[in-house]
């Protein structure tokens, strides 16, 4: 090979490199095309995506997927209608349900409790909020009668009694409603009743009564407000 030929070869190689580099630089400077394929980490995913693409592009598949979509919409509407029906009926039951009724007795007033069909029983629980100054003095539990009674007391001698128990058939609870006032309320979305019994010079006794399933819960305290009792009740875990 002559020196001239060698020179020419080098120049041709150089020019070719420069030319190709220019093309590559120019193409890289151009904006990305709209269609860009994603990077698949595994071959399986790539094949799945390819088969999906084929499915979506084929006219038969498109028709089939349209049919499928219509069917899915119909099913969704049916399910939605059923949920609506169920919600309306549950709401109706909630509206009709009265968890107690009072019989006016000449000597006393008796309150009959009815289990709540809309919730589950929770007999044993923990009161996570107790007003300042009260300390636990007594806990009575009877598994046989399915009852629990926790007593708290403060330095002034005020008693806070938290009681839970099973509602017996035709369950009867005695409250002196002739000297008391009944007020409907709610505790954590459960129906509840607030009773204030006036003991004259001895002061008031406040009772908050609510039902979960076939269990009643009762929080009573001397001279306590409805808010305070509700807070105790709502913080029962």
């Amino acid at each position, binding site marked *: 090979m*002559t*020196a*001239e*030929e060698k*020179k*020419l*070869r*080098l*120049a*041709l*190689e*150089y*020019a*070719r*490199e*420069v*030319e*190709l*580099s220019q*093309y*590559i630089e*120019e*193409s*890289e400077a*151009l904006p990305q*095309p709209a*269609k*860009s*394929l994603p990077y*698949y980490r595994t*071959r399986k995913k*790539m*094949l799945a*995506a*390819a*088969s999906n693409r084929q499915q979506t592009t084929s006219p038969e598949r498109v028709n089939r997927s349209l049919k499928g979509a219509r069917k899915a919409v119909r099913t969704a509407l049916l399910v939605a209608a059923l949920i609506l029906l169920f919600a309306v009926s549950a709401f109706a039951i909630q509206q009709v349900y009265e968890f107690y009724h009072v019989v006016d007795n000449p000597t006393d007033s008796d309150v009959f409790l009815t289990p709540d069909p809309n919730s589950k029983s929770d007999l044993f629980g923990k009161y996570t909020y107790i007003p300042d100054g009260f300390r636990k003095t007594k806990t009575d539990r009877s598994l046989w009668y399915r009852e629990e009674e926790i007593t708290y007391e403060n330095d002034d001698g005020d008693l806070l009694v938290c009681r839970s128990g099973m509602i017996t058939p035709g369950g009867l609870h005695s409250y002196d409603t002739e000297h008391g006032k009944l007020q409907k309320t709610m505790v954590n979305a459960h129906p509840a009743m607030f009773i204030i019994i006036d003991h004259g010079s001895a002061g008031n006794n406040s009772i908050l009564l609510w039902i979960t399933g076939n269990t009643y819960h009762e929080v009573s305290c001397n001279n306590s407000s409805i808010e305070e009792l509700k807070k105790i009740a709502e913080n029962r875990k």
Partner: protein
Amino acid sequence: MLLLYVERFDDHTRDQFEQFYDTYIRLSEVIVSKLIPANRPKLREDCLQDIWITCSESFERILSVPESERSKYVAGIMRNVTIDCFHKNVSRDNLAEELSEDVINTLEDRSESLSFLKDIEQLDLNAAMTKLPANMRKALEDYYLYDLSVEEIAQKEQVSTHAIYKRIERGLSELRLRLKTEGGYFE
């Protein structure tokens, strides 16, 4: 259009080729726009199609090239295909004229045909060569760089040997002219 090229591939290769197509479609467009005049839009389309057919045919070879060098390799393929396509469709008429036996003999004798490079600096030659149109350089590359015979080039490009001689002669004379006007070393 892509479907034409990927039809014969299996699923995996088809996806690879689709990714390859997306990566290099801009490069092919740049090369075609550089080498084919804008007043020949149909020829540009044909060239693009030729490029992708060639790429699909030599896809396995392309994949075997390391990723760092693949861009240049692919750009080289695209450029060669584009120039070939251009020659097939455009330059054939211009090359119809016959060359004299003397010119052919001079070209055959490489030392004689390249004697004008004797006193030329390599840097000047490089600069002049980069300014030479790519389609003229292609014939020189085939003949001098890849050491293909005129018959082989003619067979590959499906043209007469005279046409190849003519291209080489034109390339050298253009190079000589550029060295004369720009380099100043050529007498």
